[in-house]
C-alpha cells in the first residue's frame, strides 16, 4: 500500500499568544482561535502551505510531516 507524506501545520499551544495573525492569512479558513487561548488548526482543511508559519509573530507554528 502506498503511503503519501503530507505536511500539516502544528501549533505550540503553550506558547501561542492567540493574536490571530494565522487566522487572517489561512487560505482554507482552517484556523480558529480556541476560546481566546490558542490557535486551533483543522488538519482536515490544512493544505500545508506554510503561510501561517511565516506570519506567526511568535514563531510557534511549525510544519509536521504526517502519513
Amino acid at each position, binding site marked *: 500500500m502506498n503511503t503519501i507524506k503530507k505536511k500539516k501545520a502544528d501549533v505550540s499551544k503553550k*506558547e501561542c499568544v*492567540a*493574536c490571530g*495573525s494565522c487566522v487572517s492569512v489561512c487560505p482554507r479558513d482552517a484556523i480558529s*482561535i480556541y476560546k*481566546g*487561548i490558542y490557535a486551533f488548526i483543522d488538519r482536515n482543511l490544512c493544505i500545508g502551505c506554510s503561510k501561517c508559519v511565516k506570519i506567526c*509573530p511568535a514563531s510557534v507554528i511549525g510544519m509536521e510531516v504526517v502519513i
Partner: protein
Amino acid sequence: MKKHWHEYLWVFSAIYIVLGFLNIVFAWIGLICFIVPLMGAIVNGNKSYCNKYCGRGQLFQLIGNKLKLSRNKDIPKFLKSNWFRYGFLIFFMIMFSNMIFSTYLVFSENRNLKEFVTLLWTIKLPWQWAYAGNITPWIAQFAFGFYSVMLTSTVLGMVTMFFFKPRAWCVYCPMGTMTQGICKIKNR
C-alpha cells in the same frame, strides 16, 4: 477575495496617531482600544479584538509586509516567555496607574497640568502646540498621559516590527496578554 470592513481598521490607528499631534484631546478616543478588547474577553471569553479588529496589528502587518519594513526574523525566546509577557503587563499597569494618579492630582488641584508627552516613560517631549488651553486641566492631563502610553507602545511596536516579524508587538502587547489571561481563567 472580498475584504471585510474590519480589515481597514488600520486607517483608524494611523489617524489616531496623527490626531494626537493636532489636538491632544483626541487621545481619549484611544480608550476604545482598551475597553473593547477587555469587554470581549470578560463578556464573550474570546480575543475577537486581537483576531479581527485590532487596527494596530493590521498597521504593523501592512508596514512590515507590504512596505517590506520588517526583517521577518524570529522573535528572541525571552520576549515570548511568560515571565516577560506577564512582567511587561505588570510594568505597564503600574505605569498606567501612575498616569491615572497624575490625572487625579491635577483634578484635585494639587498639581498643575504638564503639557508634554512622555515617550518610553522617560523622555519628555514638549507638546504644547496640541493644547489650546480651553479644556478642563484634568481632562487634558489624562489625554497627555494616555497619548504617551499609545505613542510609546506604537514606537516599541515599530522597533520590534522592524527587527522581528511585523506583528511582533502582539507577542508582548499588554492588552493581548491580559485578554488571553482572562480567557484562560474564564474558560478553565
